[in-house]
């Protein structure tokens, strides 16, 4: 090979520009813990919920979805779907039966957003995690990544969309609350700034220590979520995943993404050197 040095410089330049192009510097910004207290979120107090499905009906209306066809029923697990962004389940527990609303948790550092190849999944600065139709290519990596299995996909459509709760992001701008919050007759779902909601939740636990488990689900799970839960029984009894840990999901791929610019920069230089070193009949020149 002629002019190894030029080759090397060329490759190094190429690698440097490639790593600038592909370098995941922005990826790391997401993994830095920041103050989320002013983001908006929801507090779901499962001790207050009576399973009336008002939230489900309001959600369907607000999002143009068909009204719910089935009711919460103990022993049967309902899941959110392409035409139901929130569902209420009835769960038998050691105390009385508990009703529990589920929807997107609106993580602070969402797995779906870090997975998304097109930035279609987007964490708005206000807090809600939304999906943008004009960007999504339908790879469904968000579904694979989401620890709560929230994003749903329209498999039967030839123009399929990802469907999930967006915390009524389009209504928030008008000064309105999410539809489910507005509809709840029990104030079981509350809307507000995450910091305030945490204060309310802590106060409720402090005021009624016998009524609640002393834990707010979503405060630290997967790095913190903007939807917070209060419960009278341990959360695993409600079917919540309690083994997710407190590490934000983008952290899992951070180390790997760090290695990309390194390999692209050092790899070509190393191999060009190796090729130079294995040049045949070169002993005399050194």
């Amino acid at each position, binding site marked *: 090979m*002629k002019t190894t040095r030029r080759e090397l410089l060329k490759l190094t330049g190429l690698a440097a520009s490639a790593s600038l192009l592909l370098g*995941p510097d922005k*990826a790391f910004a997401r993994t830095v813990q920041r103050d989320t207290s002013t983001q908006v979120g929801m507090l779901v107090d499962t001790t207050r919920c009576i399973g009336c499905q008002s939230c489900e009906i309001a959600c369907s209306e607000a999002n143009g979805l068909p009204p719910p066809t089935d009711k919460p029923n103990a022993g049967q697990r309902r899941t959110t779907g392409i035409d139901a962004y929130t569902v209420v389940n009835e769960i038998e527990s050691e105390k009385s039966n508990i009703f529990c609303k589920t929807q997107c948790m609106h993580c602070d550092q969402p797995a779906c957003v870090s*997975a998304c190849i097109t930035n279609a999944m987007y964490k708005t600065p206000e807090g809600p995690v939304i999906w943008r139709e004009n960007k999504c290519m339908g790879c469904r990596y968000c579904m694979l*990544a989401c*620890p709560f299995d929230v994003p749903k996909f329209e498999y039967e459509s030839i123009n399929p969309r990802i469907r999930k709760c967006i915390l009524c992001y389009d209504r928030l701008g008008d000064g309105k609350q999410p539809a489910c919050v507005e509809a709840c007759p029990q104030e079981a779902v509350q809307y507000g700034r995450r910091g305030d909601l945490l204060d309310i939740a802590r106060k409720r636990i402090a005021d009624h220590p016998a009524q609640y488990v002393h834990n707010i689900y979503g405060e630290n799970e997967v790095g913190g979520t903007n939807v917070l839960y209060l419960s009278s029984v341990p959360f695993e009894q409600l079917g919540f995943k309690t083994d997710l840990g407190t590490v934000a999901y983008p952290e899992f791929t951070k180390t790997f993404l760090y290695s990309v610019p390194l390999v692209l920069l050092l790899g070509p230089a190393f191999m060009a050197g190796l*090729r130079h070193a294995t040049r045949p009949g070169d002993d005399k020149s050194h």
Partner: protein
Amino acid sequence: MNTTPTTRSFGRAVGQDLWPFIKSELKPKGKLLTPFNIISAPVILLGLALIVLRFTKGLGATTNLNQEFPWGIWIGFDVVTGVAFAAGAYTLTFLVYVLRMEKYHSIVRATVLNGFLAYVFYSGALALDVGRPWKMINPIIGNSFGISSVLFLVAWHFLLYMIAQFIEFSPAIAEWLGLRRLRKILSTLTVGAVIFGICLSLLHQSGLGALFLLAAAKIHPLWYTEYIPVLFVVSSVFAGMSIVIIEGSISHRVFGNMIDPKHHAEHTDILVGLGRLAAVAMFVYFFLKVLVLIHGLHFDLLNTPMGHIYLIEMVGFVLFPMLLFIYGAQIRNKNVLLSAAIISALGIIFNRLNISVIAFKWDVPMHYVPSWMEIVITLAVVFGEIWAFRWAVNRMPVFVDSPAWAKQIDKELAEPQPAVQEIGLKDKQIA
């Protein structure tokens, strides 16, 4: 049709027009009613019909994918396994162009061609799986860069690596078309493309594993580890070697008459060398797997149904073929090496499907099983790739030697360089 391979002309003769030549080359060569064609042609036709169905009725009508299982065998086999199988190209070009192990030079073209086509077909199959393929351009043209996504990295690396592999193979195309000037230019790009391609390969082979790092709570703890990316790279080395051995053994039977007798004799040497390398990679892989197992503290899980699958994978499809490779290389037996390669390739399929499908949400009651349509389309993709490979091999200098004029160019390029000033002069003379 009935020309014997020795008189069959590879490449365009001087003075022959380009377009009539290409037209004539598009016609089939060789027998049409071979057992392989009789099996593969209906599968490809059925696959094409099902692809039409997929685009007119949607993914729900053709696949068993659902809200619990967003990725099936089109990802787990076509992409994740297919790309591991295509790893022979980067490992072999590393041996030949970086370490200058000339022994393997004669099989580089076939391997790179196979790798290139594998990427085209298998990552092309992604367009079937993706729900909104008309948006696939988004992460490429830059209006939607999801740069925090491992998938973004993998997609870009697929694209760049396909270009790199095309550059690596392009001298063969230039020889086929008789384009001498172009051949000369293209062959100067080979080493750059190889080195860049190896870096890209290391990153996207591991990237395919890193994709599953985000499925932390969903993959069985015996398979989920933060070392998945490393394990994917190391296993891609012997996956690639195994496919090179299998492909080489089949090619030597099917295309044997094209191959220079000199290379026939070298073939055992090459297989023995590849077998040894595969065994080394498998040892490293096995060692890493054991370390991960020890660190994970999941010994209790070994005596569960999933644990048994894990043990079958590790002992039956890694440890056993590794020993078989060593034994085959020791006694220099092609059939033993081929058996080892087949078993370890099956082991790669098993491993990749374990991570992406089988051990993914292993505990849900209604586990995903691919539909017959998913399987037929997958087979059609594989057969399509083999057809494209055969088409190219029958026309381009892949197994046959390059034409004399091309060798002359290589010789000129390989000549030791005189002093710097003279290079400038020489360049001018060429221009």
